[in-house]
């Protein structure tokens, strides 16, 4: 069983990912209890607060996206625990995967967005660096 916590946002816009292999922990049964106690299906999306963190917490088959303000109680316990035992992996917008349900926002915002083609005179070419292109 794997627990993954992805923290994104913040004024710096840096993404950190912590991953814990529960079986490798000295107290796996406590982890399982903690995960099972989490209110996975009771996390209505909170209104985003500028520059606050967003947490995506995953433990198959569960997944929840929480605003920083919602990370309290057992959620906070889990996040603190994960951060205690795992070193964060930084960056790589693509490494942590992309959850699905966001397409509707594109239409809402006009969807001028394109990805892909190589920049001609951008200061730092995006597509040559996997960290810069989630679709690479």
């Amino acid at each position: 069983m794997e627990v993954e916590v992805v923290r994104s946002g913040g004024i710096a816009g840096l993404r950190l990912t912590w991953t814990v292999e529960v079986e490798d922990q000295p107290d796996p049964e406590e982890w399982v209890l903690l995960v099972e106690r989490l209110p996975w299906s009771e996390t209505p999306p909170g209104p985003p607060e500028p520059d606050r963190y967003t947490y995506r917490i995953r433990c198959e088959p569960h997944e929840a996206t929480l605003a920083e303000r919602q990370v309290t109680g057992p959620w906070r316990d889990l996040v603190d625990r994960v951060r205690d035992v795992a070193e964060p992996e930084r960056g790589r917008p693509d490494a942590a995967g992309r959850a699905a349900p966001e397409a509707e926002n594109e239409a809402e915002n006009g969807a001028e967005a394109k990805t892909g083609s190589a920049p001609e005179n951008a200061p730092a070419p995006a597509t040559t660096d996997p960290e810069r292109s989630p679709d690479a």
Partner: protein
Amino acid sequence: MTRMPQPPAPRDPDARTFARARARAGIVPPYLLLRIAAAEEHYDVAADAARRSLLRDEPMRELRVEGAHPGLLPHEHTRSTTLEGERPGGAVAEGEGAPGAADHGVAAPAPAPDRRISDAEGAESLPGRLVRTEGRPPTGDEAVDDAYDGLGEVWALFERVYGRDAIDGEGAPLEATVHFGDRYDNAFWDGERMVFGDGDGEVFRGFTQSLSVIGHELAHGVTELTARLRYRDQSGALNEHVSDVFGALTEQYAMGQDADAATWLIGEGVFTELVQGRALRSMLEPGTAYDDDVLGRDPQPAHLRDYIETDADNGGVHLNSGIPNRAFALAAVELGGFAWEHVGRIWYDTLTGGTLRPNDGFTAFAAATLAAARDRYGEGSREAAAVANGWNAVGVEAE
């Protein structure tokens, strides 16, 4: 909290020297700074800034009056200047395009900021303990005093240049909390106050020493009360962009920097010396603010074709803001002079003009800025042309 698995990245003295040199290269006529400093009794916030700027870059300042925009000079057409030059029946003439200053009657008491700084003392509860209020002397706590001074600078930009007294335009208190959380690596706007962490000491060394960060946070409050850009996807990137704009302008205004002298960096000074990077973001050259073994490379796109689709960060709001950021900075550099006087004014008009809708994306926003530029400066003005060129350069159709 964010202990690094890797050994610290080697330091990059060249980059730091460069950043420092840029930061020190305040190009504003010394006579102007002296004049502002001398007028201290009337407007101590701007005077403080001017005096500090004088102290800060005395050896490096150059006279470059010809670089100044023919419009307003910094800190000139302000209510306080008006009071200073007040003669019976003879208000100082307002420069073209200073409607904010003109809105105030000469006889009304001078607006002043109402700052309230609280200390969370390492906890994550808000607001914390109130430790410094308006007019109180420095506490000796650097974060408290930096936040207090910084809020004064942001207030001065909005009030003196745009005629907006505080976040709501009606002089509401400017509230901030410092020392939030344990080695907390962030600063944010919670809807009522600015909140600043101390940083982990390894990557971030705190957020209150960056004027652009303080300006950025306060501007979130202004956006929330004006255009209300939804904090998600393109409208969210625009929300971020607006905060970067007024964060950068706060710094430029406080230091008297024209568009050429400005660093266009957001969050200069928030990284520790272990990080190979100048700042969190570069408005002029998105994607170049840092390139570090631990943090990786600044991921901001500088052109619409490199727009990043992601779920994280509310749809990449801190990434894709690079695109409008560059449009703004290019327009400012094209016009030269003080950015807060022309492009900043156009952006402020756009933000407060009532034409933006919360879900507007880049195209709608670009069109709104172009309309604002034409409204204020005229159809065929160089200001309107610069704005159009800026958007064009980043691949956004402004009309």
